[in-house]
């Protein structure tokens, strides 16, 4: 029964995506919505991305220094490990997991509230493809903004590592710089960005799906938000394994 339900839900998701990926009825209105979503989903997420990345970058640096430090290890290795963790996993996968909580629940609750207050019905009555009008700008806006958020996250994480090195003295900025630059591969940054694009699609489309199919009232909207965050997180983790395997081989 659970298997049948999963297949049915996936079918509903595909059916919704079929409605979403249509030509917008008004390009002008699409761009208006797109810019609104850029601000709401992207620009508004910058502070939380910077704060979390800064502190996690600092903590990773401390952990690497304390746990890897060894007489046989070069002094720059903590900086090197910090960079690799930030670029390869934290700034793409973990940051997107965090964003699935912030952005995903925002999308689900916004669309879910529109559903229960009949705003979506009002659009449908007018002949507007509500799925396309509401969801397509969110997906495109998040996919547009996510590479910027990833770059900001990497930069803030590195800034955090420098800050902790300078203020606590556990590591000199020179050692950290050497570590950060040691055998740097540009491809890893691209991998991070490519992964984040897939995660952005998962967050925006799955969260919108949960919001769009809400029936009932505020309790159901709250439940849908929780379900969407859980589903997005699981799907991001699963996609992370597949994408990492494909991109890093």
């Amino acid at each position, binding site marked *: 029964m659970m298997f049948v339900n999963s297949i049915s839900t996936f079918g509903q998701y595909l059916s919704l995506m079929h409605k979403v990926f249509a030509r917008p*009825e*008004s390009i002008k209105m699409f761009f208006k919505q797109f810019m*609104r979503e850029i601000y709401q989903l992207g620009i508004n997420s910058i502070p939380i991305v910077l704060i979390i990345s800064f502190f996690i970058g600092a903590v990773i640096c401390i952990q690497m220094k304390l746990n890897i430090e060894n007489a046989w290890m070069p002094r720059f290795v903590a900086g090197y490990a910090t960079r690799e963790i930030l670029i390869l996993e934290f700034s793409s996968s973990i940051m997107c997991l965090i964003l699935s909580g912030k952005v995903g629940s925002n999308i689900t609750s916004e669309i879910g509230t529109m559903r229960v207050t*009949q*705003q979506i*019905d*009002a659009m449908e*009555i*007018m*002949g507007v493809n509500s799925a396309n009008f509401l969801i397509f700008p969110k997906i495109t806006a998040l996919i547009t903004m996510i590479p910027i958020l990833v770059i900001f996250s990497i930069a803030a994480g590195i800034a955090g590592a420098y800050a902790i090195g300078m203020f606590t003295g556990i590591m000199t900025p020179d050692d950290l710089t050497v570590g950060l630059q040691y055998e740097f591969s540009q491809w890893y940054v691209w991998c991070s960005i490519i992964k984040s694009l897939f995660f952005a699609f998962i967050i925006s489309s799955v969260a919108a799906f949960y919001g769009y199919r809400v029936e009932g009232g505020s309790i159901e909207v709250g439940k849908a938000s929780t379900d969407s965050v859980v589903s997005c997180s699981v799907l991001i983790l699963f996609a992370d394994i597949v994408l990492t395997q494909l991109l890093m081989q």
Partner: protein
Amino acid sequence: MIEVKNIQKRFGEQVVLEDISTIFENGKTNLIIGQSGAGKTVLLKCIVGLLVPDKGSVLYDGRNVTTFEKKERLMLRREMGMLFQNAALFDSMSVLENVMFPLEMFSNKTYKEKLKRARFCLERVNMLQAEDKSPEELSGGMQKRAAIARAIALGPRYLFCDEPNSGLDPKTSLIIDELIHDITTEYNITTIVNTHDMNSVMGIGDHITFLANGKLEWQGNKDNILDSSNKQLNDFLFSSDLLRKVKEKNQK
């Protein structure tokens, strides 16, 4: 004119609408009345296409919408305006943007012309002074008036109102009723109002359809409704003290 022919709708085992047939004419305010759970909202949703009836057909000026392709249905919807129970204004937009929304989506007019039309509609419902306000800043009656302005922005041929007076005081309800009635006659559109407000029944009921337990029990108008011999309709009507007193007075 909208014609409903032998509509039937079930949800699981429960029959919500049973063989409903009626005609809603142009330029008249057509009311669907009945107790809560009688099937009014389901009938309205079947008429506007938000629900698909299990049997029967809905004809808009002779066009059978139940056989329409998706594209034809979308085109028809651009000829409709709807006022929802809770107004359903888009809360991310101002009042003016709400009224501009259908124009921005479907009208080929210039921005200036669209703005002029939106302001005209707002003025028609006496809401021009609130054009920059957001929906949550408005009272219930103002929200309904703004929603009417949005519904008529594209010049619809069909107007649907689901419980337009719910949550409003009697005086504001009267204003909304008069507005709906005036717009109907002014633009000669087919209006269907779903209500259980007795003031609306007696004030604007040009054509009244009474539903009980999913069945069409009575049809008529505001002038002959009090003389009906239908028991279910009388039970429904005279549960209102006001109407009971009016009838007693008339009989004296």
